[in-house]
Each structure stands twice: as structure tokens, then as C-alpha cells.
């Protein structure tokens, strides 16, 4: 074995599927002088890869995980370690049957072939299913099993063969060296290595390594129980590893996966069992491996009954024995998504953790592209480790969310479903007031945001003739008709909306203009007091954020962005500050409370509580200004995501309750209504066709496709400019459109009001795919109560993106006619923005 190195360009910690693939992908991209270490032996160092079931169901209801999975499947196929066997998600209950239909929609959204099966169809593919127990299934022909250990070995050896990587097994990391916020190297039990980059790919152990470097890696090791039962005589004839589709028994949160003559039965139905990373045994201490913990049979007993019920012919046989049973450890994050990217705390310290077999090679490619090119091909927004705020790194939070999240892994999860534990972590200065008004809170980035107000119930009667009733339970779950009523009241009176969940930071110092100019698409060299809504692009010209930047001084700018993405935006700006410290970023999020005051009576209301001039002339649209509301100083922004005349009023947090009270009391004369995020984030913004980052906007789309290319391109350089200029010269392959539903009635005569993502089809019901292979799907939807239409936003290829074009959407396997109303940025409501600009 070669000598242990003292220096390396990159140290990769962890030789599971992720670490090995990261090494291979970096080597492919020209990286040299890399070292891969693992505390266990090779090829199976004892992490979660070693005991994985290795099957891949590609269709997830979410796009980020599906994309990583599809990329991983492709890579496993190219490595020659994938065997296609097909898979069926069987449904025992009516709710599960409905969910299989939602899966069909998701598979069409993400471009994956699948079909619904009736009971006969299920039994034809897997003859030993108990017909009496199932009502149907969702079949994906491309479901496969892979050899993840072999895949890792191939990728690792490829990097070694290229002379780019040396590998040291049985080498434990003892400490991580950080200096001035930058990685310096690692200390191991075989010596220290200086390194320019360190990548943590340690699965369930990642938080421990993170702690050594002072960074938070919010994941919890959780137990997933599985047993191997056999020998099964009916399967004895199967040559090779698998000859029948894998069965997922969704209603009871289990799966059955054939392995030669045995059946692996796995469960996600048992109680949440979390293990502290410090309590995971070492390779020497563990009987099987550190992540194959002793089986706790009492937790599995109800699942045995379920398995016997589903496949009695195969399993209910005294000769079919439980040959292997483990409490296998896997990683789970507070939001169920992986952790990929550079840590916000330490420069050049990268992480790829909480990644399962189905995402491994895809996640590795994403990380390698990100490190090499500054931006990965797939959108990293939902998996970026920088998305978590400091509170999310506390063990209590991670543990509570993993405990609540584990049962959801195989459950039917509504698109708007809220976590119930670990709430009230971030409260707005207005919280006591909104609570008194009966706010129903949804959580974003730890903030409790009023989604609607029960005190507005009286509006239901007032606007009864303009509201639509949602009779379907799914469509109306996590929703209230009050939202629609608030939507109408906003446009007729004046609304107060708590916006304190914004992430706000000031960029200050000589050179601040250069910083914002570099990251923003729009011209930043504006007059002091000018506010600008701008896109931020990544190096490949994809949209990586949209936010407001206001010039507050010659050398100071205020950035205002959504809480959900604010932490990532903050890292992006921090990454582009000059190293000499002349420009500083000051986070003002916790210092300020924000209330939106908008609507036809907004100006009257505000003028009644201030002596300052806030007329349209003195305080025009897209400007900021400091003034006083009675005895409270405020900093105000004349802009609106709901498309009405008005302001976002920012005040010091300690003034929050008083400011609210002043506005509320003065507002009574104008019949002020508290309006929730249901209106702000969905109804009203859709009426204005305003885009939402993470829905319509992500790095896979460019400003031209999003209908957001500016008339002119600024002379100054900015990130993504080259790609942006190129996109402007080319014909777009897709265009963001606003559509409306023509008829909501399904085949049973029930009116359906769609939620979540679902595919857009031709009038003949065929899938629509753009020239880059991206299927058309609805990214946002909601009721525009004032325009009286159910509004959808979707990217469509140019041949379909024509106003007036008739198309269809598929929702729970029913087709509904829709019309393309607008191509590009114009809204259905107030198309000339007269109400907004005054």
C-alpha cells in the first residue's frame, strides 16, 4: 500500500456509494491528487450502502428526488450493475387507490412510463398476491435493483486508474482542521493530511464529522427494519437475483422484494427509532456491521401479519424461515431531502449526505459539477445544505422532525401538509396580534406564518355568491374557503399581511455596488432609494433566485428575499463578497418585522397615521423611504406581490406590536382585513402571474423561458451573463404560460380544484415534452377569486404556448379542459399594473 499522504487537493471522507461516486465524477472532470478515506474496510466499510435493499422506484411526488433518482438509474445502467424487474405499489384502501392515481400524474410530470393496474393486472405480474386484500396498483416497468457496492467499486477504481485518487481504508478521521472559516485538512489515526477541499460523505456518521469542523449537518440516523424470509419453494426456479416485480404495500408501509429464493420484507411502519451517531457501534463492536443493529422483533410483529396477509402462499409456510433480520440504519433530514453542497460555515468543506442508494450516483454527479463548474445541471435548490438556518442544526429539532418524518416515508403526504411538532421556533413580532385574530399558521423556515384568519369567517357570507365550494376532501385539505374571501377583501378594501418571515440582509461598504451588480441580472447602479426586483442566475444562466434589492445609500444595499430560500441566498451573496472585508453582509432578519399594507384603501389608511408625505409623487412605485407612523419609525418599500397599491412596512422588532395596533385601529374605518399567506403566496400572486421561486423558477429554466428577460441587458458583467445573452439570441424551447381551467367537473360529476403538480396534456390527452426533454406540468395553481378562475402556471413548448390554445390537465387520472390565457409575464388581473403603480 502506498504511503499515507501529507497533502492532497481533495480529501473525501466515506467510501459508501456517495463517496466512491464523488471520487469517480471528480476524476472525470479532471480533478487530481484526491484521497478517499474510510474507517471501515473495503469494499463494504459498514455504512448504510452495505445493507441497502438496492431497489429503485423512480417516481417520487417531488421533482428534485425524482431527478436525482433518474440520473442515478441511468448511471447504474451505464456501469452495468442494474437489473430491471418492474415494481408495483399495491393499494389496499380507497385512499391508497386514489394515491396511485396521483403517482400516475407525478410520473407524467417527470416523464416516467407507468400505468395503473386493476387487481387482475397486479396478480398477472405477481401471481402470489392475495386478491382479497388489494384493490389495485401502480406499476412502473423501469423499477430496478442495482449492485451499489459494485457501482461504488467501479467508480473508485476508475478514479484510481486515472491516477487521480489514492484510497485508504481502515483509516479513521479524528479531527477536521479549519482556519479562518476555510478548510485546512483532516487528522486521521494514520496521520494528518493538508487539503484544499474536504468532502463529507459519511452517511449516518456525517453529523459527527461536521461537528469536528463546526458545521451543522442536520440528519438523524433512523432504523428501518427488514427481514429475509426463505427458502420459498415457488421462487426456487428464478435464475439470478430477481425475476418478479418488487411489491410496495403502501397502505401498510411495507415492501416485499425477491432476492433469489428468498423474500426481503422491509417496513417503514414501525415506531420511529433514532440512534445517536455517537452510539453507533464501531466495525469491531458490531456483530454484522455498524449500521445493521440488533433486530427488535416486537417492533416488527404487526408487519409480519401484514406480510402474511398479502402473500400467504409464499410466506405462510412453516418452512419459510426468518433467516436474517436487522434494524438497518438510514439517514433522515428534517425535511426528508438530501444534504448536498458547500457548508455555509466553512469554505471548501462540502457535504453529500442523507442520500439513499437510489440517489447516490446522481447526487455525486451534482456535487462534482457544482465543485467544478460552480453550478450543477440539475437544480440543487431543494437539496442545498445551505437551506437550513441555525435552529435546524439543533439535535432536538432534527430528532423531532425525523421522528415525525419517518412514518411519512411510505405515507400519503398532501402537497401542503404541515409538520405538527417542532413548531413556534420563529415567531414574528406581530404574532400575538395575528394569534388573537385566529390565524391558522403554516410553517416556512421555522417561521409561523398566518395562512388565513378564522376571524375572517364572516367574509364567507359577505362574498358567498363569489366563492366556490370544494367538496372534495383532498382538494380542501390544508385549505380554507376563507383564503378566497380574503383574496376578494384585499382587492376591495385594505389588507394587513404579516411578512416577517422574509430574510433581509444589508450589503454595506465600498464596493457594495460591485457585489450586487455581479450577482443581479438587473441594473443595480440606481439612485439611492430605488428598489428593484431582480433575478439572480447561476453560472449556466439558470435562475437561482429572485428577490428585491434596494439601494439604501451610495455603498449600501438591502436585499429582501423569501424565508424559504433566504439562507441559500445569504450564502450566495457571502460567497461573492471581496476577501479583503471591505464589503460586509449584515443579517437584519431578526431585527425587523414586516407588515404588508395593500389595497384600494391602503393610501388612505396610511395617510391617516402619518404626517410624512407618502403620495405617489413623493413615494413612487419601486422605491424605499423612511418615515414615521405616529411614534414608530418605519422603513417602507413600495412594492407588492399581490398587485395592489401599498407598502411593505419594516420596523424594529420591538416596535412590531405597536405598529400593528396603530394600523389595525386606524384601519377599522377602512374595514381593514388581516390577510394570510394563502392569498399572498397563491391566490393574489397567481392573479398577477407573479412567479414563485422553487415552483416556476429554478435553475433549469432561464429568464427567456420564464418570460422575464429584460428589454435591455446591462453593460456590466454579472454571473450567468454569457448564457443569458445566448438564451436571448435563441428561440426558447419552452415558455412560461398562465392557464385557466375551463371545466372542473370530473366523470362522477364532482368539481375538482387541483393541488400539487400534475401534467399538462394535449387536447387529445397526449403528453407534451419540450425539445430539451422536459415534460409540461403545472408548477403552481390556485383560485383567483377576483378573476373568478382557477389559475395554473406551466411551461409549454412554443407550439402549445399560444393564447387561446385549448389543452388538458390530468388530475387523479381524470382529464380537465384548460385554456392558455397568457404567454409570458402579463397577468389576468390588472394587466397594465395600474392598481399596483397608482
Amino acid at each position, binding site marked *: 500500500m502506498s504511503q499515507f499522504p501529507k497533502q492532497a487537493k481533495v480529501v473525501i471522507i466515506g467510501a459508501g456509494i456517495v463517496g466512491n461516486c464523488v471520487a469517480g465524477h471528480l476524476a472525470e472532470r479532471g480533478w487530481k491528487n484526491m484521497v478517499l478515506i474510510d474507517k471501515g474496510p473495503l469494499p463494504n466499510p459498514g455504512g448504510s450502502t452495505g445493507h441497502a435493499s438496492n431497489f429503485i422506484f423512480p417516481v417520487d411526488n417531488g421533482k428534485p428526488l425524482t431527478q436525482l433518482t433518474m440520473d442515478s438509474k441511468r448511471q447504474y445502467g451505464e456501469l452495468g450493475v442494474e437489473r430491471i424487474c418492474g415494481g408495483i405499489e399495491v393499494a389496499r384502501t380507497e385512499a391508497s387507490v386514489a394515491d396511485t392515481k396521483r403517482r400516475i400524474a407525478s410520473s407524467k410530470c417527470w416523464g416516467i412510463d407507468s400505468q395503473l393496474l386493476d387487481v387482475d393486472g397486479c396478480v398477472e405480474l405477481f401471481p402470489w398476491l392475495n386478491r382479497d386484500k388489494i384493490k389495485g396498483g401502480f406499476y412502473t416497468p423501469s423499477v430496478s435493483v442495482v449492485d451499489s457496492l459494485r457501482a461504488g467499486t467501479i467508480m473508485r477504481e476508475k478514479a484510481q486508474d486515472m491516477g487521480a485518487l489514492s484510497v485508504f481504508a481502515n483509516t479513521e478521521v479524528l479531527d477536521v482542521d479549519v482556519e479562518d472559516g476555510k478548510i485546512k485538512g483532516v487528522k486521521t489515526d494514520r496521520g494528518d493530511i493538508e487539503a484544499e477541499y474536504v468532502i463529507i460523505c459519511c452517511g449516518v456518521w456525517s453529523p459527527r464529522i461536521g461537528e469536528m469542523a463546526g458545521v451543522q449537518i442536520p440528519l438523524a440516523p433512523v432504523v428501518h427494519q427488514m427481514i429475509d424470509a426463505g427458502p420459498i419453494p415457488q421462487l426456487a426456479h428464478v435464475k439470478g437475483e430477481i425475476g418478479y416485480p418488487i411489491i410496495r404495500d403502501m397502505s401498510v408501509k411495507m415492501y416485499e422484494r425477491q432476492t433469489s429464493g428468498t423474500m426481503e420484507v422491509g417496513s417503514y411502519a414501525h415506531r420511529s427509532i433514532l440512534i445517536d451517531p455517537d452510539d453507533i457501534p464501531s466495525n469491531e463492536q458490531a456483530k454484522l456491521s455498524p449500521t445493521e443493529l440488533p433486530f427488535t*422483533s416486537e417492533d416488527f410483529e404487526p408487519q409480519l401479519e401484514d406480510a402474511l396477509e398479502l402473500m400467504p402462499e409464499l410466506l405462510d409456510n412453516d418452512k419459510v424461515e426468518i433467516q436474517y433480520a436487522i434494524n438497518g440504519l438510514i439517514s433522515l433530514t428534517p425535511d426528508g431531502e438530501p444534504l448536498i453542497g458547500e457548508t455555509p460555515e466553512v469554505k471548501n468543506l462540502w457535504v453529500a449526505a442523507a442520500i439513499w442508494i437510489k440517489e447516490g450516483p446522481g447526487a455525486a454527479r451534482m456535487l462534482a459539477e457544482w465543485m467544478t463548474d460552480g453550478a450543477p445541471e440539475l437544480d440543487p435548490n431543494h437539496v442545498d445544505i445551505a437551506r437550513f438556518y441555525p435552529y435546524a442544526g439543533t439535535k432536538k429539532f432534527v430528532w423531532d422532525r425525523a421522528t415525525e418524518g419517518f412514518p411519512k416515508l411510505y405515507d400519503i403526504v398532501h402537497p401542503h401538509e404541515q409538520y405538527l411538532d417542532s413548531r413556534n421556533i420563529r415567531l414574528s413580532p406581530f404574532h400575538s396580534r395575528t394569534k388573537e385574530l385566529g390565524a391558522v399558521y403554516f410553517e416556512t423556515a421555522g417561521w409561523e406564518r398566518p395562512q388565513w384568519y378564522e376571524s375572517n369567517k364572516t367574509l364567507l357570507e359577505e362574498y358567498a355568491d363569489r366563492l366556490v365550494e370544494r367538496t372534495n376532501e383532498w382538494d380542501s385539505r390544508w385549505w380554507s374557503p376563507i383564503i378566497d374571501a380574503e383574496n376578494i377583501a384585499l382587492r376591495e378594501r385594505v389588507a394587513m399581511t404579516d411578512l416577517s418571515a422574509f430574510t433581509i440582509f444589508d450589503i454595506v461598504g465600498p464596493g457594495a455596488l460591485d457585489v450586487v451588480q455581479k450577482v443581479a441580472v438587473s441594473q443595480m447602479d440606481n439612485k439611492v432609494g430605488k428598489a428593484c426586483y431582480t433575478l439572480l442566475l447561476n453560472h449556466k444562466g439558470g435562475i437561482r433566485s429572485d428577490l428585491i434589492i434596494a439601494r439604501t445609500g451610495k455603498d449600501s444595499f438591502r436585499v429582501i428575499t423569501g424565508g424559504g430560500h433566504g439562507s441559500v441566498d445569504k450564502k450566495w451573496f457571502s460567497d461573492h463578497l471581496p476577501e479583503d472585508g471591505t464589503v460586509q453582509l449584515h443579517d437584519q432578519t431578526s431585527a425587523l418585522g414586516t407588515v404588508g399594507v395593500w389595497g384600494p384603501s391602503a393610501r388612505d389608511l396610511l395617510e391617516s397615521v402619518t404626517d410624512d408625505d407618502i403620495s405617489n409623487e413623493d413615494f413612487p412605485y419601486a422605491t424605499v423611504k423612511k418615515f414615521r407612523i405616529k411614534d414608530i419609525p418605519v422603513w417602507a418599500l413600495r412594492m407588492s406581490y399581490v398587485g395592489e397599491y401599498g407598502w411593505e412596512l419594516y420596523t424594529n422588532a420591538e416596535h412590531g406590536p405597536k405598529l400593528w395596533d396603530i394600523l389595525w385601529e386606524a384601519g377599522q374605518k377602512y374595514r381593514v382585513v388581516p390577510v394570510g399567506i394563502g392569498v399572498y403566496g397563491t391566490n393574489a400572486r397567481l392573479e398577477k402571474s407573479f412567479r414563485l421561486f422553487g415552483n416556476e423558477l429554478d435553475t433549469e429554466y432561464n429568464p427567456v423561458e420564464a418570460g422575464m428577460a429584460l428589454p435591455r441587458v446591462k453593460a456590466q458583467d454579472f454571473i450567468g451573463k454569457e448564457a443569458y445573452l445566448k438564451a436571448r439570441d435563441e428561440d426558447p424551447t419552452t415558455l412560461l404560460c398562465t392557464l385557466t381551467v375551463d371545466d372542473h367537473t370530473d366523470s362522477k360529476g364532482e368539481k375538482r380544484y387541483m393541488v400539487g403538480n400534475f401534467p399538462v396534456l394535449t387536447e387529445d390527452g397526449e403528453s407534451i415534452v419540450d425539445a430539451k426533454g422536459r415534460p409540461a406540468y403545472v408548477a403552481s395553481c390556485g383560485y383567483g377569486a377576483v378573476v373568478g378562475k382557477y389559475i395554473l402556471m406551466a411551461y409549454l413548448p412554443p407550439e402549445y404556448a399560444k393564447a387561446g390554445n385549448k389543452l388538458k390537465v390530468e388530475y387523479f387520472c381524470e382529464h380537465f379542459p384548460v385554456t392558455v390565457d397568457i404567454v409570458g409575464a402579463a397577468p389576468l388581473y390588472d394587466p397594465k399594473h395600474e392598481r399596483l403603480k397608482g
Partner: protein
Amino acid sequence: MNILVCVKRVPDIGARIDLTEDRQAITTKNLGFCISPHEECAVEEAIQLVEKHGGQATVLTLGPADAEEQLRDCLARGIDRGILIETDQPEWDSRETATALAEVIRSEADKEPFDLILFGNESADSTGCQVGIRVAHHLNLPCVASVKKLQIGDGDATASREVDTGWEVFSLPMPALITVKEGINLPRYPSLRGTMKAKKKPVDRLSADKIGASLKMQQLVHPPEQKKEVDMLGEGSAAASRIVEVFKALEVI
């Protein structure tokens, strides 16, 4: 036949055994629990004998409340009922254990006499090889230890054990007590159905008086580590000439 099998809950150890700070026990934080390998064979033997000759099999253990897990595991494999003599102390010595077991066996036998009592040759943790023989002494039963073959005749049993020169074969009248060794059979795993059935099988919980230990634990120590040295002779055909050298040095060739 009415058969009794006696088992003990022991830690299912990994490769390295860690000791508690006071060196009075091994650390079991990361370990599961099981019965000893010889006892698995005793359980299997009892199940096979009942399958062949009819009757019923009972499993008996002395240990903490959690030892029910091991009884249920035996029931899942096919034993009919379980008896747990529940203790609150971590470890009883072999004399105490044997006395308590013998007392319970006597009272159980008053209801229905046992034809055969099976033990594992020794437990995997303390390896005393005593409890079975002590119980036989208490109950005044004929006893053969380290048995690897067992045949049941009409009121008698033939038990064989392996010695260096071949087999020792014993014939003994029943009721008898036999301690068995791995190799007598290939123990089965519990089936799914067996595991489900085991939940409903009866487990009686009893208590017993501790007579007082005659042995006192001083402390556990690790045996001195055996140094292993690995000399890589090379890879592929390049290693051939060095292998020949080693073979010559060892006088293999």
C-alpha cells in the same frame, strides 16, 4: 413425550467485547440478545423429537424479565410453552441457578413428569458447563454431557458423544438429562407463521429464592491480544516466486 429445554439469555456479541468500567460485566449497549448456540441445538432437538414421537416441549429459563424475548424465540421455532423464573439480579452463579431450576422442574414434574430434560453443553457467556449436571444431581437423574447424537427408544435413550478416538455411546433410562453440543442437528430459524403463533403461546412467570452465591466475580479481563502479522506476498502471478519461498521455508515442498 414430555420434554423440557433449559436456556439462558446471553448477549449476542460482536467481534470485540467491551467491558463495563467496573469490569463486572460486558457492555451490551449495542448488542442484541440470544440463546447460546448449543442451546439452539437443544431446542431444535426437542422440536424434532416431538415432531417424531408426539407430545410437547417446554422451554425454561432463569433471568431478567427481558428473557421472555428468548422464550418467545424458542416458541416461534416450535416449542409449545415457556416458563420464566424472573430474577432482578443480573447474574446467578451455576449453583444458585441449578437449585432454582431444579425446584421449578420438580414442581412442574409433579403435574406432568418430564421424559427428557435438555440443556446446551454450556452457555456462551460464562461457559461453566455446570448447570445441567448440577440439575441432574438435584433431581437424581441419569445424565450424559456433550451429546452429539440422541436416539429415543422405548423408555430409554441412546446418547453418543464424540471423543478423540471415535464415539462414546451411552444407554440410559428415561427420565434423563442430556446436555447437547452443536453438530447434533442444524437448528431452524423461526418462520413468519411460527413467530405470529408464538405471541399467543403461554409463558408462565415464576420467582425463586436465591440461596446465596458460592462464587464471587472478581473482575473480567481481556486475554492478551494475539498479535497478527500479515505479510503481503504480492499480487497475481508476481507473488508466485515468493509463495514458493514460503512453502520451502515451511517445508511444505
